[in-house]
C-alpha cells in the first residue's frame, strides 16, 4: 500500500532550485532508503515530508505531497498535527537538555496523549522499550538525557519520536555520528520499527541502505534518477548513473 505519494515536487532555496520534479511513492510499513552523493537533495526531500523546510525563510516548496489522501502542502494543513503523525530523527543526536523521562514525555504532553501520571509512565516505558533503551536507562530516568553515550542518545531520540505513535518516521542519516556497534543497534531497531511505522531513511552508506531497506531511491543533483525495490537498484540498476554510484565510481 502506498503511504506517501509525492507529485511534481520542486524545491527552491531563494532563486536556486534544489529539487526538480520529484515523483516518488513510499510503501506503508516498509523501509525506504534515499541515497545519493552530498548535496543531491535527499535531505531536502525528507524535510518536505514533515514540512520542516518551513523553518527556512528562503525555502519554497511546489507540488503535491499526499499522505492519507491529503495534500500536506495545502493551506488548510496544520503543521503541528502533521508533525505529530510524522516523526523525525536527525543526523546528530539532539536530546533536550532535560531528563530522559522529560525527553520522552514532552511530545505526549503537548499533544495531550496521557490523562494521568500512570499513563505517561506507561508511554515512556513502551517508547523506551521499543527503542531498545529501557534496559539501559530504567534506573536513571530522571538523569539528564545529554549524559548518555552518542548511540544511546540517538536511541533516546528515536524513543522520543515514537512516543507520539507517528505513522511515519523520517530519519536523516541517523547513524552518521555513531560508531559501528551503535549503528548496528540502530539498524536492528529500524527493522523492528517497520512493523508499526513507515520509515524513510536518508543514508550515505550504501551498505546500510542495502541492509535495512526494502525500497531505494537514488538522487543526483536534485533529481530522482531511479527508484524501486532495493534488490533491483543494487543488483540490476537501469540507469548508468545509478550503476556508477553504487559501484563507487563517483559520489
Amino acid at each position: 500500500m502506498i503511504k506517501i505519494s509525492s507529485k511534481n515536487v520542486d524545491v527552491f532555496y531563494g532563486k536556486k532550485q534544489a529539487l526538480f520534479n520529484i515523483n516518488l511513492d513510499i510503501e506503508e510499513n516498509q523501509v525506504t532508503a534515499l541515497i545519493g552523493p552530498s548535496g543531491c537533495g535527499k535531505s531536502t526531500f525528507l524535510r518536505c515530508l514533515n514540512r520542516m523546510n518551513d523553518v527556512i525563510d528562503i525555502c519554497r516548496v511546489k507540488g503535491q505531497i499526499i499522505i492519507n489522501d491529503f495534500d500536506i502542502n495545502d493551506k488548510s494543513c496544520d503543521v503541528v498535527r502533521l508533525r505529530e503523525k510524522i516523526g523525525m530523527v536527525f543526523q546528530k543526536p539532539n536530546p533536550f537538555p532535560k531528563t530522559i523521562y522529560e525527553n520522552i514525555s514532552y511530545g505526549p504532553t503537548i499533544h495531550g496523549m496521557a490523562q494521568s501520571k500512570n499513563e505517561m509512565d506507561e508511554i515512556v516505558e513502551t517508547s523506551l522499550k521499543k527503542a531498545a533503551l529501557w534496559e539501559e536507562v530504567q534506573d536513571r530516568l530522571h538523569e539528564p538525557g545529554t549524559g548518555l553515550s552518542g548511540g544511546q542518545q540517538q536511541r533516546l531520540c528515536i524513543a522520543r519520536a515514537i512516543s507520539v505513535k507517528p505513522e511515519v518516521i523520517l530519519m536523516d542519516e541517523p547513524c552518521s555520528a555513531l560508531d559501528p556497534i551503535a549503528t548496528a543497534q540502530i539498524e536492528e531497531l529500524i527493522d523492528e520499527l517497520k512493523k508499526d511505522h513507515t520509515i524513510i531513511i536518508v543514508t550515505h552508506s550504501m551498505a546500510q541502505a542495502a541492509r535495512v531497506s526494502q525500497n531505494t531511491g537514488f538522487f543526483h543533483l536534485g533529481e530522482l534518477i531511479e527508484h524501486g525495490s532495493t534488490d533491483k537498484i543494487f543488483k540490476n540498476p537501469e540507469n548508468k548513473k545509478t550503476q556508477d554510484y553504487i559501484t563507487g565510481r563517483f559520489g
Partner: protein
Amino acid sequence: MNKKKEQLLNKRYKAEKRFRLYGQSAIFMALLFLIIFIFKIFSTGYSAFQKTWLIVPVTFDAELMMLEQNPSKEDLKDADYYDIALKSMADLDPNANENQENELKRMVSYFFEREIKRELLNDPSLIGKTKDVYLTASDDLDQVFKGNYPRDLPEDQRRVTDYQLKIFDQLVELGKVESKFNLSFFTYPDSREAELAGIASSFMGSIFSILVCLMIAFPVAVLAAIYLEEFAPKNRFTDFIEVNINNLAAVPSIVFGLLGLGILLAVFQLPRSTPLVGGITLSLMTLPTIIIACRASLKAVPPSIREAALAMGASKMQTTMHHTVPLSMPGTLSGTIIGLAQALGETAPLILIGMVAFVNTIPGSPLDPAASLPVQIYIWAESAERGFVEKVSACIMVLLGFLIIMNLFAQIIRHKFEKKWS
C-alpha cells in the same frame, strides 16, 4: 641548513617569551592601578565607619526642663532639653565666659539636646540625677580625634579653636572621648552636618530605582529580544531596528537624563527627584543592554534543539517558551544583572531628573524624593567640610560592595543554571 633552522627555532622561542612578558606586564599594570585605587579609597574611607563620642555628665534638672511633679510620658516628650544640654556642656569648664560657653556648645553635634532627650525617654527615673551621656562630637573634633585634621595651622585658619582643643585634650586624658562603630552612617539620611550625615536615604533611593528599572526593563527587553530573535522576519526593517538598538546601547547616559527630564517630568508631570522617575530613566538605558544579552543567549541555543521540538509537533511558540527561552535564561539573567549594576552606578541622568536634591528623609516608596548612592558621592564630594572627605570614600566602598555582590550573583547564576547540550 641546520644552523638556519636552529636560528629560526631560537627566534620563535624568544618571540614567545617576549609575548608572555608583554601579557604579564599588562596584567601587572592593571592590578597595580586597581590596588592603588582600592588602597586610596580604603585608607581615606575606613575612618568613616568610626564615630567619636564625648562622654558628658548631664544633670536632669526638673526645674530647668520646666517639668511638673510626676511628669507623664507626653510631658517628657514636650519638655525643654536645650537648657540642661547647654548647661552640661558649659559645666565642662566652670570658669568659661560667655564666648567660651558658646565654643563649648559647638564641640558637639547640632542636635545634641536630642541625644539627651532620648536618654531620659529611655529611663524616666533619671530626673533629678546626673548621668554620663554619650554626645556625638562635632565633625571637626571627630576629624581631630581621627588625626585627619592638622593641629599646627594658625588658629584663624582652623574651624576648631585653641580653647576647644584644650578642653578636648582634657577630656581625652580623662578617658571621656570614645570612638565607636558609626551605625548612624547607615541609618541616618543625608545632613548638612558631616557627623550626622548617613547613606540611608541614598541607599534606599538606589534600591527603589533599581527595582523600578528592573520591573520595566526586564519584561520589555526580554519580550523584544524573543520577538526579534525567534519570530520577526529577517528583513531590512528588522536590520534597521537591530542597528538602532546597538546604537542605543552606546548613547551617553546624560542623553537619557535629558529625555527623562523632557518627557517624564515636563510632559507626564511625574514627581521630581523620585526613584520612580530615576528608575524609568535608568530602564531606558538598561533596555538595550538586556536586549543584546538576551538575543546573544537566544542565538547560542543550538538550532538542533529548536528542530527537535518542532519535529515533535511543538508549535513555534511552544518551542520558544518550553525550550529556547529557558535555555537562554542564565545568559539573559546575568546580562540583566550586569545592566542593572551599570544603572546602579549611573549619576548623570539622575542629576538631570533632580535626584541630586538635598534629601534629609528616608524614602518609604519609589514616590518619595530620594538621592542615590553615586549622586550622594557627588553631593558629598562637592561639600567643603573636612568631615565629608572620608564619607565620600565610605560611600564609594558601600557602592563597590553592592556592585561586587551583584556581579558575583550574575556569575553564580551563569555557572549554576547553565546547561550543557550535546
